């Protein structure tokens, strides 16, 4: 370190104690020695959210949230703004990848029973983050004002209309008008660029605080290391150092995911930006076989197969409530999946059911 840099660090250290903070949270912070690759998905998500913020700001500099100009402004970003196509593709593909990683993160936490006491609030904050991620995707989907955006939003907002008594009111609140239009674009834009990102940042902060305060859970597999408990906090004195050992592993996983993201964004963006996304919205002309994004297909198909849409919404609501309250429902201490046959059967069965319903929704 050069003398100038050391002086700068000394200056900061005197005022905010960065050396001690780094020692406590990095070099002397130990993670369980049997930790596995799935524990790095949280860091992958932090990087993906960071990239969404960065590309979102770049898009925001050129995007115009008005029905007459939104589609053209996106076209201009892609075709005229230097590297605008890269920012747009990374943002669109990155949002899908973030949902994939969010799902993997949640599924691995469920599989390893990491949601259990004392990590109920960590789970709950993560569940809220997952929902905020979906809300960001839903609101961002409308912004390009393409045929796909317009009609997917029409269908998704219409679903709220099946709620008894206040359904019509909910649809109007969501759209800002009887049908999707400029008012919908305005409120979705405000939600997408201000309200939801602020909520996401706040809940990420709470989630990380809880992870650090309670300590990383020990995986139920492999040779268990020593655990020292101080109240609800768990220390792993014989674990591996977070920095540099575990950080190096996380960098490897992050690099792998980013390589995949860039490959799709550069070579095959059409996977997530289909042909209907290249046509401007036409409120009088519905394109054929409009479908929601892959992560909403299960909800869409559930609405279709239930006797009434309200029953479909009620089933979805009941399932999401069950998921949110999972640590309060499943309170036994055992975490190893192979010693929890009922849990394992449900875990595999529900995933298979979700994939099956989504594929059905895609081809129906």
């Amino acid at each position, binding site marked *: 370190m050069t003398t100038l840099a050391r002086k700068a660090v000394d200056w900061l250290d005197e005022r905010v104690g960065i050396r001690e903070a780094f020692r406590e949270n990095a070099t002397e912070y130990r993670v369980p020695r049997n930790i596995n690759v799935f524990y790095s998905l949280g860091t992958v998500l932090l990087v993906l959210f960071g990239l969404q913020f960065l590309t979102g700001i770049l898009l925001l500099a050129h995007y115009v949230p008005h029905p007459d100009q939104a589609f053209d402004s996106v076209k201009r970003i892609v075709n005229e703004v230097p590297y605008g196509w890269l920012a747009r593709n990374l943002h669109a593909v990155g949002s899908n990848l973030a949902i994939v990683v969010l799902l993997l993160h949640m599924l691995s936490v469920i599989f390893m029973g990491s949601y259990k006491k004392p990590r109920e609030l960590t789970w709950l904050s993560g569940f809220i983050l997952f929902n905020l991620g979906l809300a960001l995707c839903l609101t961002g989907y409308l912004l390009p004002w393409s045929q796909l955006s317009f*009609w997917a939003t*029409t*269908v998704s*907002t*219409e*679903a709220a*209309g099946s709620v008894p008594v206040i359904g019509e009111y909910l649809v*109007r*609140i969501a*759209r*800002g*008008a*009887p*049908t999707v239009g400029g*008012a919908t674009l305005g*409120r979705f834009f405000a939600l997408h660029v201000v309200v939801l990102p602020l909520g996401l940042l706040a809940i990420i902060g709470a989630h990380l605080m809880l992870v650090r305060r309670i300590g990383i859970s020990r995986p139920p597999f492999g040779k268990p290391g020593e655990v020292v408990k101080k109240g609800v906090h768990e220390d792993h004195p014989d674990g591996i150092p977070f920095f540099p050992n575990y950080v190096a592993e996380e960098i490897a996983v992050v690099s792998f995911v980013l390589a995949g993201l860039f490959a799709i964004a550069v070579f095959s963006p059409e996977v997530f930006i289909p042909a209907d996304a290249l046509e401007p919205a036409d*409120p*009088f*002309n*519905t*394109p*054929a*076989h*409009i479908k929601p994004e892959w992560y909403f297909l299960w909800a869409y198909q559930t*609405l*279709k197969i239930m006797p*009434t*849409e309200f029953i479909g919404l009620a089933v979805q609501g009941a399932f999401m409530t069950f998921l949110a309250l999972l640590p309060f429902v499943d309170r036994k201490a055992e975490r190893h999946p192979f010693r929890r046959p009922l849990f394992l059967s449900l875990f595999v069965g529900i995933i298979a059911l979700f994939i099956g319903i989504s594929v059905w929704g895609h081809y*129906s």
Partner: protein
Amino acid sequence: MADNRRRFLVAAIGTTGAALTALVGWPLLRTLTPDSGEGADAQVRVPRKDVPVGGAKFVQYKGKPAVVLQPEPGKFTALSAVCTHLGCIVKFKPEQGDFECPCHGGRFDTKGEVLAGPPPEPLATLAVAVDGDDIVVG
């Protein structure tokens, strides 16, 4: 005495807080609640020549798409063009003489009745009258 004072202060702060929340909350709610659209375009006039026999003319009525038809010479009807399944806009198929929803394949006849597909209800029928060279919807 100190307890009374503390209770009074807590009650006063609580009441002021609730009043301020209502003061901010009500305008916020009103700002985000749109008009129902009922008053807008209470009546729509469509020139008769725009609606041929066996044809259809799409218009905006009370903020939502509607369609005016002339199934027989001189007889006009009007329907909401919003599919009762998930809110997509139906398309008129003149060769088949019916409506099709492109989203999920729902089909309706020219009276709005469901012929096939997932729509749970018929298309809403709208009032229509002839006034000189115009057709008046609503």
